[in-house]
């Protein structure tokens, strides 16, 4: 169930160039149910940045009442977020949306987890939970360069991890799809979050196969709760063109092939 809470920043640090990791503490964590859900942050309570910023849960721990967000400080809202210090409060609305589905028993199953850039964060808690359910997890992560790469070691602790960078400064030079083409990585299920071209390439690879693919989508949002219709996408099988899903409320995770990627 969604709530609004002034959560306390318990740690806030730079992970890579312009990439921040923020850990928040509060009651809201008790309502988090799946990796892939997100929170909607008010970055500026008295100034002129009116819209909240959607950021995925990278990790959460109900016992500790803490959740971790990883974000790129890019525009003015995330820059304001980056200026906040440990001990300060942040107005958080959440948890929002539906995350990645994880079957209870995955003993012996192979799960392939694919992320690109700031699409990587929600995959961290996902991978933890997949592993806890018995899956053997393999990660394929893509970044622009070593400067902006993060969490490779953390993912390695959970399973085999392959990294690609566009400039070749870390791991293989190229895209995650190059790694997939090169290595036949066994997979019973695939999860992905990242830029649209990456998700499109994965859809081509897996939709129509027997391997289910779940993808997490992004769109510019206003309300984040399903009321403003900012974040809708078309359904694939819809001759009328009128049916839709709201990414904030019905997603952000969808089974690949369900909605049209735009």
């Amino acid at each position, binding site marked *: 169930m969604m709530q609004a809470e002034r959560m306390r920043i318990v740690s806030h640090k730079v992970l890579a160039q312009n990439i921040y990791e923020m850990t928040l503490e509060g009651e809201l964590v008790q309502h988090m149910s799946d990796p892939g859900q997100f929170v909607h942050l008010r970055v500026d309570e008295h100034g002129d940045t*009116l819209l*909240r910023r959607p950021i995925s849960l990278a990790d959460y721990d109900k016992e500790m009442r803490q959740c971790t967000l990883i974000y790129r400080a890019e525009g003015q809202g995330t820059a304001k977020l980056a200026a906040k210090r440990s001990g300060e409060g942040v107005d958080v609305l959440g948890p929002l949306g539906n995350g990645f589905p994880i079957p209870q028993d995955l003993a012996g199953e192979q799960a392939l987890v694919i992320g690109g850039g700031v699409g990587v964060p929600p995959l961290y808690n996902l991978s933890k939970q997949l592993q806890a359910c018995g899956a053997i997890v393999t990660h394929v992560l893509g970044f622009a360069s070593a400067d902006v790469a993060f969490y490779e070691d953390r993912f390695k602790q959970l399973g085999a991890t392959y990294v690609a960078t566009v400039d070749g400064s870390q791991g293989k030079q190229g895209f995650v799809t190059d790694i997939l083409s090169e290595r036949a990585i066994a997979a019973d299920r695939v999860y992905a979050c990242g830029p649209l071209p990456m998700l499109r390439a994965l859809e081509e690879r897996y939709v129509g196969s027997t391997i289910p693919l779940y993808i997490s989508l992004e*769109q510019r949002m*206003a*309300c984040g709760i*399903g*009321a403003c219709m*900012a974040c*809708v996408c078309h359904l694939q099988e819809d001759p009328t063109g009128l049916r*839709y899903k709201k990414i904030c409320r019905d997603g952000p995770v969808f089974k690949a092939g369900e909605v049209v990627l735009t």
Partner: protein
Amino acid sequence: MTDGNEAVDLSVDLPGLPMKNPIMPASGCFAFGQEFAELYDLDVLGAIAIKAATREPRFGNPTPRVAETAAGMLNAIGLQNPGVEHIMKEELRWLEHYQTPVLANIAGSTVDDYLFVAEQLSLDPRVGALELNISCPNVKEGGIAFGTVPDVAAELTGKVKAVSHLPVYVKLSPNVSDIVEMAQAVEHAGADGLSMVNTLLGMRMDLKTLTPILANKMGGLSGAAIKPVAIRMIYEVSQAVSIPIIGMGGIQSVDDCIEFLLAGASAVAIGTANFTDPWVCPNLIQALPQRLKAMHVTHIQELVGRSWKAWVTQ
């Protein structure tokens, strides 16, 4: 005026909308209420303005549909809605769980569209009044001509009045050179009230793609940025017409509400602020009496048009 110990009367009796307080969510910023009903009891609201209804269902514009601006946002939703038939079968039936009066927003691209939707909605017992959206900047086909040419707006208003027994509010566009002329034209055509303002047409560019951020290129500016424009227009119009005004445009605080009343609005609607704080409407309703007491106001209606009315002390 009072010494501050009496209860404050927040009620406003508008045509078709007996409101227990002057605050309602604005059309398009509240959908049909379902999402907010999970957060609070909708019966605390003075009224509810529901999302625009069109004759046929509409998907609306491609995404991105919103872009942020300084103290505001642009939207080009494109009037996405399930069509009047569905709204009457589902959304308005669901709203029967609540007593709060409903202001039903209507959009269209032809006169016939407006009349069809107005006739249908007038059959619905849950609708208290109609709000003609003649000012949506986000539909290419015609929509905005109704809002920018006084004769066209007046003719539409008159025709809707002729097919409906319900009070009709006309929602004015700020994208005109003479808002007073527009307001007087629809008043003479029989409008029972005015809603003002709708969004101001605007644009933003994406420096990565070197193209407009919105897929629709242009969108409607809302939020705090447009507040002074709305207040000025309400100030001018309220002195030139005798029908009540529902004021909107960037309201976020109790003091903002009071500014709109002072300018001449009888009630206010809250749009964009619902996205920043989904509890903003009940919060404002709760905070209003205390602020009014501090101002020694016992009836909220004392404030309406106070900035320009010669006040007669009781």
